[in-house]
């Protein structure tokens, strides 16, 4: 941990306030109450075309309270940590819950809780405050040096490099006796590069790396090499890229594309709150219905999980924001829907209990069902084997544009780095291949899954007010048979 002794004392004092809030709610006769303290600190440094932008710092400290009163749920938060303010916050939650009863078609219930007593934190060898601003800028400058036209063989008129870090400390208690202290350190690197070739136009690439842990994780990222390699690739695409085929053919999707597919068309539609309609006016509903467990949506080769416990993952946590222990959730098994992501409310509604998917990104956000790290499990194919018997196809390694309808059925991925496959070999780059397909159409076309799983960091949006949650998505390369590229 990186807080000073004074900070630690203050945090302990604020933990007392968490218990005070729970007791205050309990005294009002609620069915259930929880309180959650967040103490967050973060920074970001940016190089914009080699020039430093303002250093940004962010600090948050506040308490969230949630109460269940006669089957009505209310959430309230404040960053005024006086007892007077906390009393007002609890009273507001209680009153608004009471008021809501009039428009409640059936009481909200929570699945059985367990009075967990736990303390967890991400392992860090080089803690975040140990890296000075000067050192952070030096890291970005080293990357910037690799992005010069003579090195990457293409002009990069716009180069934005952002290095960020964040420590989020949380303390949770509820009327069932749970007391959980969790701390996550995260680092991230975001880059946006625009490549330009006279007569060929521009291409843009946004890349995102992110992990929990300390600055030692940077060593794994090989930023100097990988960002420059991506930039050089953009130049090759501009110079050599041919028009993408618009026909039925075989397709190989790289791990980055497999990851976004798993996130958008498996993770989201299998969030139980969407299935039950809670997000209908915001992020939408789902093509999946509660009775579709066991329903076939893909080939036997497709196995997808969501797992918050992957070490160093960007979406890592060990207890969720309802005090439920995190675990791996299998979402699709051998092509069939095998489970949903649940919080305690949907777990009670569907009679299966929570599987620890409730997350809140800040003290001022309610816990809602979120993915953590969603990925396709590996298969048995080497990357070369995936290509071997493709007579004519396209390999889409990375993407830029994508979207999906709000029932998570009709999706589109536009390739950025992509190549023609001819007689089992990757040949020339192709520009912007468009895959526009349904969810079962995509998963049902998968006939081979690679061995090597890779992850990408992302910020997933959901909820109202919106909550951008850190996640990983990933998987191996996969092969799809007989799909139509269009656009």
């Amino acid at each position, binding site marked *: 941990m990186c807080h000073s002794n004074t900070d630690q004392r203050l945090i302990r004092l604020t933990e007392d306030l968490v218990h005070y809030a729970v007791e205050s709610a309990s005294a009002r006769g609620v069915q259930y109450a929880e309180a959650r303290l967040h103490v967050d600190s973060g920074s970001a440094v940016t190089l914009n075309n080699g020039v430093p932008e303002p250093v940004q710092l*962010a600090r948050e400290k506040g308490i969230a309270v949630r109460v269940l009163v006669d089957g009505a*749920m*209310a959430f309230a*938060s404040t*960053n005024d940590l006086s007892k007077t303010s906390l009393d007002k916050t609890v009273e507001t939650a209680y009153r608004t819950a009471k008021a*809501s009863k009039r428009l409640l078609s059936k009481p909200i219930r929570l699945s059985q809780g367990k009075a967990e007593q736990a303390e967890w934190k991400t392992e860090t060898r080089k803690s975040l405050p140990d890296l000075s601003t000067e050192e952070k800028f030096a890291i970005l400058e080293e990357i910037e040096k690799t992005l010069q036209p003579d090195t990457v063989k293409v002009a990069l008129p716009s180069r934005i490099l952002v290095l960020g870090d964040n420590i989020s400390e949380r303390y949770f208690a509820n009327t069932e006796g749970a007391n959980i202290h969790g701390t996550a350190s995260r680092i991230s690197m975001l880059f946006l590069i625009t490549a330009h070739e006279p007569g060929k136009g521009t291409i*843009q690439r946004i890349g995102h790396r992110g992990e929990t842990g300390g600055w030692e994780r940077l060593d794994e990222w090989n930023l100097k090499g990988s960002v420059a390699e991506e930039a050089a690739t953009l130049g090759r695409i501009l110079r050599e890229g041919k028009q993408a085929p618009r026909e039925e053919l075989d397709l190989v999707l790289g791990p980055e594309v497999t990851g976004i597919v798993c996130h958008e068309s498996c993770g989201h539609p299998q969030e139980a709150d969407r299935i*039950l309609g809670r997000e209908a006016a915001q992020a939408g509903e789902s093509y999946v219905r509660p009775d579709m467990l066991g329903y076939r949506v893909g080939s036997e080769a497709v196995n997808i999980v969501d797992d918050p416990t992957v070490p160093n993952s960007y979406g890592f946590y060990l207890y969720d924001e309802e005090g439920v222990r995190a675990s791996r959730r299998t979402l699709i098994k051998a092509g069939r829907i095998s489970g949903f992501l649940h919080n305690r409310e949907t777990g009670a509604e569907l009679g299966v209990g929570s599987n620890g998917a409730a997350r809140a990104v800040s003290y001022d956000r309610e816990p809602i069902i979120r993915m953590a790290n969603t990925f396709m499990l590996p298969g048995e194919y080497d990357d070369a084997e995936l290509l071997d018997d493709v007579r004519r196809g396209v390999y889409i390694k990375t993407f830029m544009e994508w979207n999906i309808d709000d029932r998570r059925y009709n999706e589109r991925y536009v390739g950025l780095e992509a190549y023609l496959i001819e007689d089992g070999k990757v040949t020339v780059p192709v520009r912007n291949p468009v895959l526009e*397909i349904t969810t079962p159409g995509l998963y049902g076309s998968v006939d081979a899954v690679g061995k090597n799983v890779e992850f990408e960091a992302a910020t997933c949006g959901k909820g109202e007010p919106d909550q951008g949650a850190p996640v990983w998505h990933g998987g191996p390369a996969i092969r799809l048979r007989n799909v139509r590229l269009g656009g």
Partner: protein
Amino acid sequence: MDPEQIVEEAVEYGLKLGASEVAASVTHEERKMLRFANNSITVAQSWDQTVPTVYIIFERKRAGARVENPSIEALKEVMNALKAAMDIAKPGEVEASLPKGPFRYEQVPLTYDHRIPEMTNELVDLAQETINAASSEGARRSSGMVLTSQWKRYVKTSAGAEGTDKGTNIELTIRAFVDDDSSGQGNSCATRLEDFDPKRAGAEAGKIARQAKNPVFGEEGKYTVLFGPTIMAQFLGRTADFASAYSVDLGLSFLAGKVGQTVASEKLTLVDDRRMPAGINSCSLDEEGYPTQQTTIIEKGVLKTYLHSSYSVAKYGGVLTGSAFYVGGTWGIAPVALNVIVEPGEHREEELLEKVDDGLFLTNGWYTRFQNYQTGDFSSICRDGAFRIRNGKIEQSLKGLRISDNMPRILRSITALSKKRRWVKWWEVPTPVYLPQMIVEGVGITRATK
């Protein structure tokens, strides 16, 4: 601690640390939100937050912080950290001075309603009213939210600007379903209860949902499209964002390098009007302490200016537009659009429908993503009611459509606008847009192929 005292001490402390200039703000906001789904409240939410921000300039070095902890001690701790960072950071490209005050600020009329912060039980009544209105049009179930907010902002800079501002808002979004494939959306937002109409929003959502019954899959092609305000607000709200010098600087704008050039149909005039009476985000000063104003971004198709802060004026030229707010990101304080206003056309809404011989009527959309921000190539999903128009009449409800096109081309292809305008602000349109319906020619439509 008193917010005025926080900004006062923050500026003083920044100068003591050796800063050449300091801007500080504190925003106190109280909000209440009821969310509902399947005609039933899912959660009541409320917030009471005081958020200081500070922006410090040490000649060509700049730094900023947002501190969700309303104490001067917390702010000073962060300012010490900013100073330490600045001591070793390399200087930036340009030296930008904060606007020199003092300035005179005039409260924008009709932006505060003392009744709004008092509402608690009444929010349940409003939710019930909008759900009932949707049901009376045939909706089987509705989801949405009602939100009230009251805010007060304090700003002080070392350049002599100092002022306060306040406002209220009430917003509602409702999405009504006749069945899983047939839905419609309505919304209402206002600064005063007089202008807020949950019944109209519910009825509109229910009516669209009813019309959207029995949809068939649409076909790919180029279409004349009548865009309803809710979907067009996404595109024009994003266009206003792209007019921020901050977006231009990041390489994330198809408007880069186009000031003075034709970027849209002559039918389109796009304004960021922070002075509009009863405007949803109207306010009297920005967070550099500069008075807000009405800024014409696009006038009859010609891009007139970017939205600016003091830093972007120093970097790109131009004049201040009263658009500088603390956004974090890479600049700290950056120019943002707040009230996007589209000038009206000359047609009744019914006339616009009649003008389309063979085309589409799209009421809503979401998930707009760009393939390349500089060229403006993008796609966006149609959501809720989508209809085939033949001979000026709605013929068939459609589903499974996607707009796959280029934003500058869309802007250049606007051919007609309605006289009637309405405010649109919801989950997918965070910056409020006041706009009419409009016809766009040759819109690319695609759909899933397997």
